[in-house]
């Protein structure tokens, strides 16, 4: 029920250590925005700044058109779900959920109605009298979410809410959060995670944070977009490799023909490979990196291929087979191909790889040719 506007937001610790810089972001009502980034990139810090738990060192934060930089957390209309749930251990589930309303001096009936409605929505009704220590991890997480729902906030903030759950519960709770979001189409949510699957499945838009070169290597927003935008058209090598697993293969190469589509020759390949990414005449001969996702790599017998190598490791997962290729000296990351189905006995073979022109990415100096 609210839109957020971050303008030039920065975070400086102790007047010297700049962590975040030039964060510009518009969040529309009803969006579910996911912050992702490498560990230490300040995604949780950014969330805590929105919550009001951290001072905003520079720039402005607007909620519903009002600058809230100096507004205390409780008056910003936000609610936060913490990684450790942060339930009050000495209060029952009911009191945990009722606490905010009691502080706000709401009437008993009103509190009771709100708590019971939230408990009903989260299937917590039978646990209302229990203390948090008598609940399972998933139930505690639901209480934490219930505590936010009760307050009926404009913006929900989630700080890695699923990372303390085991794998199976994580999937179940993820789906619950997705359903919850569907039930509350007007509420805005901001969600921090390091889990790609959470980001891809929950987000209406993903915000990727990274230390950018033209920002003096301070962390800032690398790219914002829908999950598939980031997957299909990453604007930089970093985003390309950050989204998708295993990470995108980057092969060194050269542009040999420009125009509506670009023709490339890679160093370890033979013949040429075509990309649907357009290029300008002056790009002729430019040194670039050719990006091919493992799942887009196709084995070929043709004399035109982007990469050829011996399979060093073969991982058979059933639905797919992962092939790890040895790569020339001085290259650390192996080239990986993800082939659908089961391919026994590939190890030791030399395989040639190419890809559909629609799925070949081109990066120059770390930036996609699409975004320059």
């Amino acid at each position, binding site marked *: 029920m609210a839109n957020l506007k971050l303008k030039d937001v920065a975070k400086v610790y102790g007047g010297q250590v700049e962590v975040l810089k030039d964060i510009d972001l518009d969040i529309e009502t009803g969006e579910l925005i996911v912050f992702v980034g490498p560990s230490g990139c300040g995604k949780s810090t950014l969330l805590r700044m929105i*919550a*009001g*738990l951290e001072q905003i060192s520079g720039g402005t934060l607007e909620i519903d058109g009002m600058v809230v930089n100096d507004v*205390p*957390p*409780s*008056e910003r209309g*936000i*609610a*936060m779900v*913490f*990684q*450790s*749930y*942060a*339930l*009050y*251990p*000495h*209060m029952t589930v009911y009191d945990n959920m009722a*606490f*905010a309303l009691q*502080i*706000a001096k709401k009437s008993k009936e009103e509190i009771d109605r709100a708590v019971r409605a939230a408990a009903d929505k989260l299937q917590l009704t039978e646990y209302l009298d229990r203390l948090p220590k008598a609940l399972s991890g998933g139930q505690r997480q639901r209480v934490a979410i219930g*505590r936010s729902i009760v*307050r009926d906030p404009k913006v929900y903030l989630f700080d890695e809410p699923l990372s303390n759950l085991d794998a199976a519960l994580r999937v179940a709770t993820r789906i619950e959060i997705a359903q919850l979001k569907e039930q509350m189409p007007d509420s805005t949510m901001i969600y921090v995670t390091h889990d790609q699957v959470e980001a891809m499945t929950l987000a209406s838009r993903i915000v990727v944070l990274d230390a950018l070169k033209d920002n003096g290597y301070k962390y800032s927003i690398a790219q914002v977009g829908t999950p598939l935008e980031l997957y299909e058209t990453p604007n930089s090598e970093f985003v390309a490799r950050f989204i998708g697993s295993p990470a995108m293969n980057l092969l060194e190469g050269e542009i040999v023909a420009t125009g509506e589509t670009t023709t490339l020759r890679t160093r370890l390949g033979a013949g040429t490979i075509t990309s649907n990414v357009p290029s300008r005449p002056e790009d002729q001969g430019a040194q670039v990196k050719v990006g091919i996702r493992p799942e887009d790599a196709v084995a070929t017998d043709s004399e035109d291929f982007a990469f050829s190598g011996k399979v060093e490791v073969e991982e058979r997962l059933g639905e797919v087979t992962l092939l790890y290729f040895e790569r020339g000296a001085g290259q650390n990351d192996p080239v990986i191909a993800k082939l659908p189905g089961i391919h026994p006995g590939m190890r030791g073979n030399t395989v040639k790889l190419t890809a559909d022109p629609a799925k070949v990415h081109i990066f120059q100096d770390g930036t996609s040719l699409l975004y320059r």
Partner: protein
Amino acid sequence: MAVQEDTQGASFIQGQAVIWLIGGLLLVAAIALLLPDVRGMLGNSPILQGVLTIVLGVGGCIGYFWASNIVLDKVIFPAKGANAGKNINRANMVRPWLFIFPAFAALGLYLAYPVVGSFIRSLYDRSGDTFIGFGNYAWLMQDSEFQQAVFNNILWALVVPAGSTFFGLVAAQLTDRLSWGNIAKSLIFMPMAISFVGASLIWKFVYANDADIGIVNAFREWVFGADSVDPLQVSFWNNFFLMFILIWIQTGFAMVILSAALRGIPEETVEAAIVDGASPLQVFFKIKVPQIMGTIVVVWTTITILVLKVFDIVYTMTGGNFGTQILPSYMFEFMFRDDGRATAVAFVIMLIVTPVMVWNIIQARKEMR
């Protein structure tokens, strides 16, 4: 397997060697003690006496465990013959009792026996020859000074733990976030290192009936221009002036324990409360204090037990005069004069302390879980 047996054998031989060494030393010491010259030398040298005590004590402990285990394993339940397996199990059931026995014996001798002994003594009159039943207790009940002491003791037991815990809690919370908090904490903790008699001396100066010496009277003169009074003779309130000395001493204890407990509170619960709109006071009283309630109770009862035993402060400050009598100082009045009444008072004190102590132990155990 073979290697393991070898190392076991080696450690067994080492163990044997140590035992023989200690045994030998003890034997030499014992023989030396038989010589009059050595005894004379010892009599003049406290250091030698001390060393000898340590050697005898430690050697005695080791010797006891070694010998008792040998007797158990070789003589009573030997691990051989028809019942070897059964004997090993039986020996293992008995073994814990061998280890616990010395502590039991010491506690029995120095704790249980004196309690029983005191109780029996309290049933006799002043001379210790005539059995008078509960006569001493009956006399106490009607003695106005005893009533006064009980009343004052109850006041002490309520006010001092409450004051110490409250000030300790406040100090712990306030010093937690300060850059110079640790210095403040050290200063508050320092009185803990002063003996009660020493503390009383300090406060005798503070309360001195002279504006040039006592800060209390100096303050009165400076602010109100009032004449000096002796705070220790201000009836009823003088009790509180004495209690304040103990609060001054014990606040540091409460602060240190509660400060550790406060730091153990998950920071995220505090942040969640802030997001929920709680004010700093509400965060403190509704989120922090309930989470450390167990620790607060332990601190409270620990200080209560200490308060019920305190004697030095009253004895040095007023000697129990001016209506400041408490049970321990009251007991001291009869010591060496009427052991019957003194032991009766001691027994009353024990009856009061015991339930608090039991509660304290239950709470402390809960905390540890």
